[in-house]
């Protein structure tokens, strides 16, 4: 038998690998059975550590973060990765004086991953009496009220424009342009340097999550759900079209890789079933349906425990989402919705970071034997992998998935 890949050039090899991996990854996401289980680890600070950078270095210089992700992609035989999971860039946060990020080496120790500061209830970026303005015109509210509050440089509307204010828009615009253009090139380089697929494209947040994460804060939102639930619902409805637009504007034009929704506060025990059923889900579901109607899948990155809401998710059309398991029981999830949607993750980070290679192999074998048996599974950790993830375990996990994950 002749080996078809003999004498292959590097570029031929990478383009062959890319095609194989894309097919494998997309087949699994469409709940089909590829040649073997695709692997798509969401590596963040792990990539920095592996490439020999501190968290500070990759946060300050996105070229280093990109290089680290590409080094991982080249050294480990993974099907898909994200171009940079340490997505905060100091250049951009400083250009407009963003208050809500803690940057390694500045606000937090140099080898701690970046942080997100949620202000106290009293200092929330949006106050209870701002609801009407947000509901009336979300864009105007964000530009006129929210932006000056989250930036130390942007002058509030009505106050004199300062030199810093003017510069912040110039710097911020340039920084954003540079960084986001960098992502396009990164996607290309992943393909040409190592034949790796960029795992996701386009970002979605549930309307209620945006309210909690970036506007009212979680505690504020809890008070609002108690005191003014109707305003919360209206605000979510008002935000929905904007969130749909943002998601679609970043989507993969080829419609291969999914838009990702990072799901934060809609699960047990964050909100009650009533609030999930009356606010969270009714204002999110139409967005997911519209994304699907336009031909894109959504990756439900279901942080925490969402098992109580699987029946609601099962209302979505077959194949419209890929369900990522964090703290849910991956076997139960598979039983309940595996016939409708592909599943990813469900391998606990504590096991991956601190377990023995043997324990990792045993656990993955169980998941592969049951959840991945008929395809429709993408290997990943339960949560984002930071610099606690061990390189040795990463190798063992990757090798085992390739060996044992062949169909």
């Amino acid at each position, binding site marked *: 038998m002749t080996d078809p890949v003999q004498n292959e050039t590097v570029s031929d090899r990478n383009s062959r690998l890319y095609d194989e991996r894309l097919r494998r990854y997309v087949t699994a996401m469409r709940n089909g059975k590829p040649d073997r289980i695709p692997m798509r680890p969401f590596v963040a*600070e792990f990539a920095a550590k592996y490439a020999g950078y501190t968290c500070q270095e990759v946060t300050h210089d996105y070229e280093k973060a990109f290089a680290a992700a590409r080094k991982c992609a080249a050294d480990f035989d993974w099907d898909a990765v994200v171009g940079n999971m340490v997505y905060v860039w100091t250049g951009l946060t400083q250009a407009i004086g963003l208050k809500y990020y*803690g940057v390694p080496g500045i606000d*937090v*120790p140099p080898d*701690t*991953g970046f*942080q*997100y*500061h*949620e202000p106290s209830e009293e200092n929330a970026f949006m106050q209870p009496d701002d609801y009407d303005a947000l509901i009336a015109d979300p864009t105007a509210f964000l530009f006129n009220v929210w932006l000056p509050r989250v930036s130390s440089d942007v002058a509030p509307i009505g106050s004199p424009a300062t030199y810093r204010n003017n510069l912040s828009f110039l710097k911020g615009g340039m920084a954003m342009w540079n960084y986001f253009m960098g992502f396009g090139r990164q996607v290309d380089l992943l393909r040409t340097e190592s034949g790796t697929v960029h795992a996701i494209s386009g970002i979605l947040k549930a309307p209620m999550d945006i309210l909690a994460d970036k506007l009212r804060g*979680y*505690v504020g*939102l*809890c*008070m609002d*759900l*108690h005191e003014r639930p109707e305003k919360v619902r209206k605000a979510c409805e008002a935000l929905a079209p904007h969130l749909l637009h943002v998601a679609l504007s970043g989507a993969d034009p080829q419609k291969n890789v999914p838009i990702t929704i990072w799901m934060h506060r809609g699960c*047990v*025990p*964050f*909100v*009650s079933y009533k*609030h999930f059923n009356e606010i969270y889900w009714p204002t999110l579901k139409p967005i997911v349906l519209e994304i699907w109607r336009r031909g894109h899948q959504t990756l439900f990155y279901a942080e925490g425990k969402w098992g109580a809401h699987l029946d609601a998710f099962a209302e979505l059309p077959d194949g419209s989402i890929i369900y990522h398991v964090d*703290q849910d029981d991956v076997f139960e999830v598979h039983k309940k919705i595996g016939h409708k949607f592909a599943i990813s993750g469900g391998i606990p*980070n*504590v096991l991956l*970071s*601190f377990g023995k290679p043997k324990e990792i192999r045993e656990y993955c074998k169980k998941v592969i034997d049951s959840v991945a048996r008929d395809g429709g599974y993408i290997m990943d950790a339960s*949560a984002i992998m*930071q*610099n*606690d993830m061990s390189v040795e375990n990463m190798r063992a996990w990757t090798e085992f998935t390739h060996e044992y994950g062949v169909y």
Partner: protein
Amino acid sequence: MTPSHPLYDAMISGDAEAARCVTVRTLAEGVAPLSLVNDYMIPAMEDAGKRFAAGEYFVPDLLIRARAMKTAMAILRPLLVAAQIKSAGRVVLGTVNGDVHDIGKNLVGAMLEGCGFEVVDLGVNVSPEKFIAAINERNPHIVGMSALLTSTMYSMKTTIDAMVQAGVRDKVKVLIGGAPVTRQFAQEIGADGSSNNAVGAVAVAKMAMGLQIESTAGVYWRTA
């Protein structure tokens, strides 16, 4: 039996303003501060905790009750202190170095306070040095640490090790918690106890104080 009193009702409905008014009024009527705490506030928070553990209440339900509790407590605390009434125990609480997750820690703090403990909250990103300084300055019975990231859970070990180094480890009981924390991990790093929820946190704090508890669900306590 559920106690019937407007303060209990205000706590159960999470009405902070009513809790404040009732507290002021009842005190003026001559009711002892400690009896308000023991007879109405603690039962109300315990009831909320039980419902949370049973999956009937969610975090927002606890938060609004905690707010009512804190409003009343702000009035009662100075009176209790002036009367030299001892709390169930003093707890220094914080989220460890490198970690800013504090929703769980705050709930634990609120439940402890609502169940008669005095809580000194050091906030988030708390270094071993800060924990040690707080032990020296505040003389707590218990140090509670929270971590939500696999990358920060070992800060708990670093902190315990630093406490040993500084010679203060034996002055306190160390309790830990947060999503990635398991009983094995608690054992491995030499903590005295742990729990995976706010109700269990109160139970394990009571165990640390040698008090009686009803249930040990979700609780780890070091034996021997």
